[in-house]
C-alpha cells in the first residue's frame, strides 16, 4: 500500500510538471494579450509531432529534437500572433474563433502528414530509478520534471529580473498604461506568444515517447489546462503552477484509487466550486476581462 501511494505521488509529480508547462504558457498568453488560445492543446500536439518527425523518422538525437520542438512551436505561436491575434486585438471573441480555426488547420496537417493512427516512439532511454522497492521513476519522466523546474525558474527570473519581463508584467496589469510608458504591445505580445507556445511545444516533445501522439491528443490537454487556469486564477502564473500541482495530485490519486471518469468529474467539480465561491480563482486578486 505504501508503495502504491508513493508511486502515485511520483506519477502526480510528473503529471504536474508537464501540465504546469502547458498551463503557464496559456496563462502568459491570456495575461499579456487578453485572449484565450483554444489551439494551445494543438501546439502541444505539434511539439510531440516534431519528435515523431525528427527523432523517430530521421534519427536526430532526442534532446536536439526537444530544442527544435521549442523553436518550431514558438514560431507557430509567432505565426498565430502575426496572422490573427494582432489584427483582432480589440475582439477577444474573434481571436478565440480564429484560434479554433488554427486548431483545425494544425490537426488536419498532422492527419495529412502522419496519419490518424497513434505514432509509437521508441523512448531514447529505458533506464529507470527504483526509489524504494516497487516505486519506479523512469529517466524519461525525470527529464520532464527537470525540464519543468528549469524552464519555469528561467521564466520566473526572466519576468522578475529583465527589462522585457518587467514590460510583460506591466502589459498583463494594464495594457493602456503600459503602452503609455512606451512599451511596444506588439513586441511584448510576440515575445509572450513565442514563450507560451514554446513551453507547450517542449511539454509535447518531452512527453511524446510516453504518450504515443495522435492528431487529437490536444483536446483533453486543453480541457485540463482550462481547469488549471480557472482554479489558479486567470492571468496568475504562480497560481497556475500551484493549481497544476493540486489538480495533478487530485486527478492522479482519484484515477488510481477509483476510476478515470470519476477523476475527470472531480476535477470539473473542483473548478465549478472555485468558480462559484471565488470566481477570480484561488490566487486571483481582481476581476479581469
Amino acid at each position, binding site marked *: 500500500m505504501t508503495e502504491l501511494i508513493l508511486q502515485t505521488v511520483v506519477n502526480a509529480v510528473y503529471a504536474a510538471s508537464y501540465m504546469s508547462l502547458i498551463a503557464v504558457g496559456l496563462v502568459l498568453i491570456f495575461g499579456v494579450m487578453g485572449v484565450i488560445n483554444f489551439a494551445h492543446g494543438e501546439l502541444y500536439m505539434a511539439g510531440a509531432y516534431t519528435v515523431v518527425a525528427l527523432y523517430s523518422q530521421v534519427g536526430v538525437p532526442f534532446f536536439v529534437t526537444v530544442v527544435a520542438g521549442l523553436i518550431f512551436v514558438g514560431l507557430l505561436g509567432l505565426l498565430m500572433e502575426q496572422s490573427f491575434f494582432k*489584427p483582432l486585438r480589440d475582439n477577444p471573441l474573434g481571436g478565440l474563433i480564429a484560434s479554433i480555426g488554427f486548431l483545425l488547420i494544425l490537426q488536419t496537417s498532422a492527419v495529412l502528414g502522419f496519419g490518424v493512427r497513434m505514432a509509437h516512439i521508441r523512448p531514447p532511454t529505458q533506464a529507470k530509478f527504483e526509489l524504494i522497492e516497487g516505486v519506479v521513476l523512469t529517466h524519461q519522466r525525470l527529464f520532464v520534471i527537470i525540464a519543468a523546474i528549469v524552464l519555469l525558474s528561467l521564466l520566473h527570473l526572466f519576468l522578475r529580473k529583465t527589462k522585457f519581463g518587467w514590460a510583460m508584467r506591466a502589459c498583463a496589469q494594464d495594457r493602456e498604461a503600459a503602452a503609455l510608458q512606451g512599451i511596444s504591445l506588439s513586441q511584448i505580445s510576440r515575445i509572450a506568444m513565442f514563450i507560451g507556445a514554446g513551453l507547450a511545444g517542449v511539454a509535447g516533445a518531452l512527453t511524446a515517447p510516453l504518450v504515443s501522439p495522435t492528431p487529437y491528443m490536444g483536446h483533453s490537454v486543453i480541457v485540463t489546462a482550462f481547469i488549471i487556469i480557472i482554479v489558479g486564477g486567470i492571468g496568475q502564473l504562480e497560481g497556475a503552477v500551484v493549481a497544476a500541482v493540486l489538480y495533478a495530485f487530485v486527478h492522479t490519486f482519484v484515477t488510481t484509487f477509483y476510476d478515470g471518469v470519476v477523476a475527470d468529474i472531480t476535477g470539473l467539480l473542483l473548478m465549478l466550486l472555485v468558480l462559484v465561491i471565488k470566481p477570480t480563482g484561488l490566487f486571483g486578486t481582481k476581476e479581469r476581462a
Partner: protein
Amino acid sequence: MPRAKANIWSWLLGFCLLVGLLVLPQVLSYSQREIAVLLIINVLLVSSYRLMTLTGEWSLGHVVIMGVGAYASALFSKRLGIPVPISMLLGAASAGGVAAILSFPLFRMKGFYFLIGSFAAGEVIRLIWKYFTYPFGGPKGLKLIPGFPDIGSISFFEPEIYYYLCLFVVAVSLFVLYRIERSRIGLTFHAIHWQDKLAESVGVDTFRYRMLAFVLASFFAGLSGALYAHYIGTINPTRFDVEEMVFVLIWAIVGGTVTFYGPIIGVVVLTVMNEVILRSLGFDTARPMIYGGILIVSVLFLPDGLESLIPKVKGWFSGRVKKTGEVLEPEKSP
C-alpha cells in the same frame, strides 16, 4: 402576421423560399437528404443558442443541453414506453429543467467566467452519461431508440418524410422564438445585455430573466436533440462533446448574432460549403483544414458576420431603399 406592410418583394421571396424548402428533398440525393434533415435540426439548435446570447452570456454547454433533450427523450420512449411525440416534448422539458437547476450556480458568474463555468457544468453532465452504464449506456451510449411512429402508410423512417416533420417542428419553434424576442420579455433580454445595472435599477430581476432566457433556449435545444435522437436512433456522450459546441459557436459567429436570421445563414452557408461543395470537389481529409482557414478569414475580414452582407445584397437586387433587416424575417414562419 406582423408588419404586413412589408413590401410585395419580400412576400414573394418568402414564398419562393417556402416552395424551395418543400421541393428540396425531391431534388436531392439520398445522402444529401440526410444532411438536409440534420441541417434543419441544427438551424433550431443555433437559433435557440441565439436566444441565450440575447442576454449577453455565451454558453459552452448548449450542445450538452441538446444532449439532455436527446437522452431524456430516448429514455422516456425506450425504457418507459411513452409515445415518441410526447417523449420528445418531455425531453425538451427535461432540458429546460436541467437548465433551471444549473442557473443557480452558473448565473453567479458573468462573461468569460460564465463561458468556462457552463463548459464545466456541461462536461460534468457528459461524464455522468459516460460513467453510468444504467440508464445512460456508458461510453457506447443508447442504441435502438424507437423512431417516430408511422401515421397510416407514412413512414418517418425515410429521410424525406422526416425532413418534412422536422421542417414543421422547426418552423413552429422558430416562430415561437421570434415572437419571444419581439415580446416584452425579449426586449428585457436586450436591456439586460446592454445595460444590466440600469435594468436592475428600474426593477428588472436580471437573475430571473437570465434564467428564463437560459431555460427557454434549453427547451428548444432539447427539442432539437430529441428530433436528432429519434432520427439517428443512436446517441453517445461523444456526439455532444465540446467539439460539436465549437461548431455551434462558429455558426453563430460567422453568421452574426445581431439579427434573427444571422445564425441561420451561418449554419446553412457553412454546412452547404462543408458537406456539399468541399465534398464534391474531392477534398476529404483536408476538409477541416479548409474549414479552419475559412473561419480565420471570415473573422478577419467579416467581423460582423455574414448577416452584414444581407442589406448590401438587397441593395443590389432591388435598387431601392433598404429597410435593413426587418423585411426578411417573417418568411421563416409559414
